[in-house]
């Protein structure tokens, strides 16, 4: 790209284009996750300039300073949590105040505990941000893992702007979060379970938006439009409690 083009682009951004992505987007390098697919999915939605503000890192200061943070994950809960602990990220993540998107195992790690033991003898303690427990999906005789395209029923939440009830997204998992007050979307495979959970600035998607064609791309686009003010504006309860704390 020529310098002239770059200047023109940045002038466009300065005009306050409503699709402008503010600040840095950081994908946490969880070590054991397949990060490339998530990174590629964001890159597909980004201009060259935006891509320069997309980072895959485990650097604590960069994560803290990001406008929004992605926590990807595949594999087992125990391996992923160990990887976070080794990097000191298990302490950091619960303190983050910007929008954070957990994907698949990244969603499950936001909860209290996962009963996916892998080859461990105990349940796996998680980040304890969203107060639910992960347990084996009760497929009521249907095949497990729950693998493939299934429909979701989303609630009103900024991550689901423009997403219709009954939209298909791609799932690959055997464990699930139960239905709770923190569910923001549901799906059914045998039992009905949380396709997505959220609390304050923390959002978790059980499915893979990076592999869910246009529907998934829209959710990632919605996430890129979020910034540090998004949940401060919408979550008055949180704002009130913070005010009370200050008083």
């Amino acid at each position, binding site marked *: 790209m020529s310098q002239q083009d770059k200047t023109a682009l940045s002038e466009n951004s300065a005009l306050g284009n409503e699709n402008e992505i503010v600040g840095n987007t950081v994908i946490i390098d969880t070590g054991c996750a*397949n990060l*490339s*697919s998530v990174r*590629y*999915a964001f*890159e*597909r939605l980004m201009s060259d300039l935006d891509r320069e503000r997309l980072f895959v890192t485990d650097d604590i200061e960069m994560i803290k300073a990001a406008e929004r943070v992605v926590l990807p994950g*595949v*594999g*087992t809960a125990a391996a992923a949590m160990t990887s976070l602990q080794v990097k000191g990220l298990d302490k950091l993540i619960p303190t983050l105040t910007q929008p954070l998107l957990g994907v698949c195992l990244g969603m499950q790690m936001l909860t209290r505990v996962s009963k996916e033991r892998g*080859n461990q003898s105990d349940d796996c303690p998680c980040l304890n941000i969203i107060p639910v427990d992960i347990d084996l999906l009760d497929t009521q005789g*249907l*095949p*497990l*893992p*729950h*693998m*493939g*395209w*299934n*429909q979701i029923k989303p609630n009103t939440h900024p991550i689901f702007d423009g997403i219709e009830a009954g939209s*298909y997204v*791609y799932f*690959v*998992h*055997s464990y699930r979060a139960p239905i709770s007050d923190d569910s923001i979307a549901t799906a*059914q*495979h045998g039992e009905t379970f949380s396709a997505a959970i959220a609390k304050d600035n923390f959002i978790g998607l059980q499915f*893979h938006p*990076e*592999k*869910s*064609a*246009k529907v*998934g*791309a829209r959710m990632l686009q919605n996430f890129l439009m979020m910034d540090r003010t998004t949940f401060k504006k919408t979550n008055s309860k949180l704002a009130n409690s913070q005010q009370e704390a200050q008083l």
Partner: protein
Amino acid sequence: MLAKRIVPCLDVKEGKVVKGVQFRNHEIVGDIVPLAQRYADEGADELVFYDITASAHDRVIDKSWVSRVAERIDIPFCVAGGIRTIEQAREKLAFGADKISINSPALTDPSLIRRLQDEFGRQCIVIGIDSYYNASSDSYWVKQFTGDEAATKDTQWFTQDWVEEVQKQGCGEIVLNVMNQDGVRQGYDIKQLSMIRAICDVPLIASGGAGTMAHFKDVFSQANVDAALAASVFHKGIIDIQELKQYLKDNQIAVRV
């Protein structure tokens, strides 16, 4: 409700799609990404790339096509062919493949399945099985090394027993390829697939024999498989994926349209 998946399979050799691919009026000159993109745009639910370079030649070859696909394609894809070790699997997954499929090497060493599962999780471990019907004994048997006619050999496994074994070893999905119908487009082997379905607790993908849209309807409604894989009917433009999915929907099969 979980949708039934339509899965086109592409043969890849040295980073190019091979087998004289012809796509209606859209001429494909062998580059993998535009064809994969086109299938994804038309509504394919997943893609399988069968790397025939890898299985034919035992040498280090360029796998960067896997990451070129991952950069562009926003649906899941599986890489099959020539994966014999944890490291070869890790390479494909790191490049962005969602799943890897193992066939002959698992027959040589079934513990490979467990080791892959321990390393990467069962969700990305697909087992391909080439099954054939032996009329004289009225039974189904597994063959090995079917990629190379001269090397193809019988195994000691009944298909049912091998399906049980690979599940026990921890695979996440099974592709059952029925050899005696493959390529002739006379329909999927409903009888065999139904029998395997009854003992298969992981997702089951039917492969081999698709010739008409009705064949897809039959395999979903009668054998209750999770997905149907096909190659030539899509490559030759005999079946259009969008039309197929609309047809299945009209026939009360749950599909993503």
